[in-house]
């Protein structure tokens, strides 16, 4: 059975300190620290593209051992800001990593729920086609679509990428998923053609608080577990106040809900695997709940169990 074996991460060293923008955006130090919860946002090097971030994340995966490039038979890139409108960014990653001709390569065009979707799609695709070694990437450099004058997004989003190794010899089994979509709210987080990113924070907050708790309850039910069995809830790292509000709404012990994006920001589909990598090799966590929510508006959750 295909599961998660290892995760490589790339967070650019280049950072923009949000404190330097407080006055321009007319927000207080307390608001920045206690509500947004992000001190700096990461930025890729000028001229880099999504595929370059994937290559960096793959280098970290290689350094951690386990991945053998010549054995990789499937890659997938989750991005909404790929190198080009076409071709798929995974084809460019395929070239840059020098992967074999028979390696399948596809993209998934989802935002904050993308990692959860991609895990489930990848597992099913690999198992149904007898593929044995897959790497799924998240790389969504929002810095390319942010308006620096927009305080709703400028202080939030950071660039990053991850590479997750999927194989039979895995540390975590991937359980069943639960999904939700509110297409009527698609304009709440949108980048229209020839415009910058627009975000209606209140709509997203309402969507998250109204749908995520139900979605997670559905996820418990389809996986046959109860909330008490979950050791760690890894929510999409949107902002501190949203994570805090969700934990409060769901009455979850905040010690089970990590928030660790203070020094790089909301990295969209990368936010969950960046946290998840801390639990690879950590025997203290047996059962994890992953929940991504945002662009779409879309929500997806799944359960991981230590093998």
């Amino acid at each position, binding site marked *: 059975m295909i599961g998660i074996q290892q995760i490589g991460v790339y967070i650019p060293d280049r950072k923009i300190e949000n404190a330097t923008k407080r006055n321009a955006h007319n927000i*207080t130090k307390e*608001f920045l620290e*206690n*509500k947004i919860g992000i001190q700096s946002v990461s930025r890729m090097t000028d001229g880099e593209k999504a595929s370059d971030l994937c290559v960096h994340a793959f280098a970290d995966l290689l350094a951690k051992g386990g991945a053998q490039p010549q054995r990789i038979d499937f890659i997938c890139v989750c991005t909404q800001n790929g190198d080009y409108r076409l071709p798929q960014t995974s084809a460019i990653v395929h070239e840059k990593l020098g992967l074999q001709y028979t390696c399948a390569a596809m993209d998934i065009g989802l935002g904050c729920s993308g990692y959860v979707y991609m895990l489930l799609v990848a597992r099913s695709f690999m198992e149904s086609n007898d593929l044995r070694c897959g790497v799924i990437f998240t790389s969504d450099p929002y810095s390319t679509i942010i308006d620096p004058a927009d305080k709703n997004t400028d202080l939030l989003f950071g660039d990053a990428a991850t590479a997750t190794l999927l194989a039979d010899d895995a540390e975590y089994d991937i359980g069943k998923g639960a999904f939700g979509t509110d297409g009527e709210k698609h304009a709440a987080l949108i980048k229209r053609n020839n415009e910058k990113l627009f975000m209606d924070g209140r709509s997203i*907050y*309402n969507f998250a*608080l109204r749908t995520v708790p139900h979605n997670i309850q559905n996820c418990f039910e389809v996986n046959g577990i109860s909330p008490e069995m979950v050791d760690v809830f890894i929510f999409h790292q949107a902002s501190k106040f949203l994570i*805090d*509000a969700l934990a*409060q709404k769901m009455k979850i012990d905040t010690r089970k809900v990590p928030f660790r994006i203070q020094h790089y920001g909301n990295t969209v589909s990368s936010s969950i695997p960046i946290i998840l990598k801390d639990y690879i090799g950590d025997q203290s966590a047996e059962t994890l709940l992953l929940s991504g929510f945002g662009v779409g508006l879309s929500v997806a959750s799944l359960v991981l169990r230590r093998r």
Partner: protein
Amino acid sequence: MRKANREDIFEIIQSVGSISVDVNDIAPDEDLNAQGIDSVDMMSVFFEIEDRFSITIDEESLQNKTWFTVDEIVESTNSLMSEKGVSSEAPRP
């Protein structure tokens, strides 16, 4: 038909985890923002009001009504309930 009152709004403000202001120190006729309740806190307050009084506070409602003080929130909430024909016996807890 049960209308919203000051106590409802104070209770909602108290229930919002991110708000550190003591509700006993909040003046009902003064701007909440000036009393330490920021835009994110207000988002949470509006969310709870929507759930409790079965109304939707959309952008149009935010622009056409005033929501700065507790008293204004009470009045605007009741106005929205009336406009939208909300006829529940009592607000949801």
